[in-house]
């Protein structure tokens, strides 16, 4: 009886104890220990040399982070072309430096940015305005009851409204829609507007952007820094939508703005490098070839790119929309109508293409001016940041929301330690896809300290296990 009573007491105490412990942890917001950050910026001595990115001495002591990328639109064959991106990070007390390198068999030299071209037509290049390949099996017909509508099919104007049909799902298109039907039945939609992309995507008709030898998009690379309040963020995806939330387009209301962040309560700063607009290369970048960023009257900004060097467009996205962190709004709506002096060129870049690889180096001061702080993170030692990477290969059809991205945010931190000596191992892998080299060699470097602590961790754990088994062998 007594034993039963004490058992009950113990049971009650344990129940209450566990509940109270969980409650206290919840109320006191006791932080759970996190794992090692996946991307670390090491403390180095030296400065970036953006004219020869990646060649600075300090990079040789830092190991590459090999980060897998995945398709942003899983079903589109033009999405997820870049399978991995190599990343290094360093800081020197004043600047943060990020080095990205990825395999790109067909660099989009000379491709231009529509936004930059719109400012100044000479800053343009090959045909670029978006051509969308519709999902195989999509057909069309003309609904002639729309007497005031017309469409252009294979260059021939036809009266009526063009209706797309995929698996019984029909999508009426706007007046003046232009398509080309290839010999195999594939439909190419010309001059699509952003809301049209949303409608095609949501009706299962978006198959990818169409390219050929003279019609392609610029290469791009972007780094996204999470700035939201919900930690940890679960998704780095962005919404497909209209030019602004609630846009009414041809009878459809689009809930989200294209580029707005899906993560509930989320916001992020993006550094976007564009080969046809922000690459300081007067031969292959039409914007730099025409000195666009030195012309205040064209950009509408009260400042120019200091030194006429490369940069990354600073963007800001939240649940509402995607914005540009400057007052001109060349690519997206500006976050502010005044102030922000110098913000467009705040993130500097240097880029080179050689041996089939793009190498892009980003440099930005750790601290941002107070005026920018709402849209760009300050980087300080001791904090964990969440970062995501994206790459576009424009000649292979990637542009806008069609890209290769990290499957989720990775943790990033500044280490006060310098990079240690590294051990280099070389591995060779063979890929069967046509968009990657038939045989690629990846060199990965692991610091000796990392190797040491890995071994120490394993040995200590094994000793602990053996000791437990020996001492408590019964």
């Amino acid at each position, binding site marked *: 009886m007594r034993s039963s009573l004490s058992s009950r007491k113990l049971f009650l105490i344990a129940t209450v104890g566990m509940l109270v412990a*969980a409650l206290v942890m919840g109320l006191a917001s006791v932080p759970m220990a996190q794992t090692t950050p996946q991307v670390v910026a090491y403390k180095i001595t030296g400065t970036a040399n953006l004219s020869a990115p990646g060649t600075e001495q300090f990079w040789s002591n830092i190991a590459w982070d090999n980060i897998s990328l995945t398709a942003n639109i899983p079903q589109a064959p033009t999405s997820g072309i870049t399978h991995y991106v190599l990343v290094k990070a360093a800081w020197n007390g004043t600047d943060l430096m990020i080095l990205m390198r990825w395999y790109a068999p067909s660099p989009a030299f000379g491709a231009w940015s529509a936004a930059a071209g719109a400012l100044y037509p000479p800053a343009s290049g090959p045909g670029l305005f978006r051509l969308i390949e519709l999902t195989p099996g999509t057909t069309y017909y003309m609904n002639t009851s729309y007497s005031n509508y017309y469409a252009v099919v294979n260059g021939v104007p036809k009266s009526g409204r063009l209706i797309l049909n995929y698996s019984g799902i029909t999508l009426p298109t706007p007046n003046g829609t232009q398509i080309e039907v290839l010999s195999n039945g594939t439909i190419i939609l010309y001059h699509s507007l952003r809301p049209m992309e949303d409608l095609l*995507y949501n009706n299962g008709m978006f198959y990818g952007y169409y390219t050929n030898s003279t019609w392609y998009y610029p290469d791009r690379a972007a780094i996204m820094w999470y700035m939201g309040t919900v930690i940890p963020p679960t998704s780095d995806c962005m919404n497909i939508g209209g030019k602004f939330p609630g846009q009414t387009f041809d009878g459809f209301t689009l809930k989200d703005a294209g580029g707005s962040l899906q993560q509930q309560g989320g916001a992020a700063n993006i550094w976007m490098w564009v080969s046809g607009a922000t690459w300081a290369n007067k031969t292959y970048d039409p914007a730099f070839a025409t000195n666009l960023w030195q012309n205040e009257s064209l950009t509408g900004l009260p400042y120019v790119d200091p030194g006429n060097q490369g940069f990354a467009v600073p963007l800001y996205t939240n649940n509402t929309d995607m914005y540009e962190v400057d007052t001109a709004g060349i690519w997206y709506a500006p976050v502010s109508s005044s102030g922000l002096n110098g913000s467009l060129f705040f993130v500097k870049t240097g880029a080179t293409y050689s041996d089939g690889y793009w190498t892009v180096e980003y440099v930005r001061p750790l601290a941002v001016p107070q005026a920018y702080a709402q849209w760009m993170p300050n980087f300080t030692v001791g904090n964990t940041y969440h970062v995501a990477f994206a790459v576009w290969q424009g000649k292979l059809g990637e542009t806008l929301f069609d890209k290769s991205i990290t499957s989720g945010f990775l943790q990033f931190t500044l280490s006060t330690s310098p990079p240690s000596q590294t051990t280099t191992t070389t591995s060779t892998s063979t890929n069967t896809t046509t968009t990657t080299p038939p045989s690629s060699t990846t060199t990965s470097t692991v610091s000796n*300290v990392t190797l040491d602590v890995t071994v120490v961790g394993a040995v200590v*754990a094994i000793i602990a296990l053996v000791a437990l088994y020996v001492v408590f062998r019964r």
Partner: protein
Amino acid sequence: MSLRQGGLLKLTMVFLALGSVLQFILQFVASVSFLPIKIPALPLLTRLGEVGIDLSFVSIVTLSFLIWPKVKALLPLGLILMISPVFTIVPDYFASPWWIALEVGVVVLGIGAIVESLLKATPLSLLNLPTFFMVIILMWVALDVDVVHSEALLNYLALFDASVLSFALYTLVWKTKGLRMRRALASYGGAVPALFVFLPLYFVVSGNRFMEIIMNMVMPSVFGIVFSNPYSLPVFVLSLSLALYFIVALALKGNFLASLGYFMIVTTTFLGVNGYHLILYMIYPLVGSVLLNVGDEGASILFKLSKSVQR
């Protein structure tokens, strides 16, 4: 195990089950909250999910201390988890190389716990080898990301499918002799509603491309899994439905520990693709694997091995 410990273990399991379900709800609602659908009582579900994480933390620590005499490797694992929040006081603790040593230690101890519990389990547990293989592979993937900073892109769905099939077989074979036919049939029948938690999604994504596209982003966001083939989503949803069905069926058959263990594995193991982010999430599938092994009674593999050696 004494009566007291037995009662305490059951209580801990109840709390762990509750915590696991609540934290999974958090994983799910956080990922679908951006969809144009109204989730009823979203703030409440989010709060409950956060409580679930804390409850899981307390339960796993308690569980480790309760069953360490049976699986000794759980003792250091429970200790590490218990003191892990203390490290957060140390500035920049996660950037220290010694934190890598701790993570490696957790994985080694966890693998030790899986092997130890497997040797002490009945031979039936050998059916779950594909699951243990999956858990260990994901641990390697997580260390690959956290330590070497290199993400591995594997066919995770194949690993998951092999695991689900083996778990289904384990459920079907478990206590085929010791259980009355009526109880067994009631278990399989009673678990049918669990099948319909995810199965409707299969029909939705198979016949609706829009939902397929949406769920292609949602499911990896919830579970952490990355599809090497983008058209794999329906197969994953189907596998998930089957996994949940057999989890509930096994619990109704009477092996609550193994069913909870497998639920813990399914909901957290693929978070390893991005390095788990929390030590708790790293320990979750390891403890789940141990529970898969300790739920059965009978002569252990070790005992049978020693007998055969004696002969």
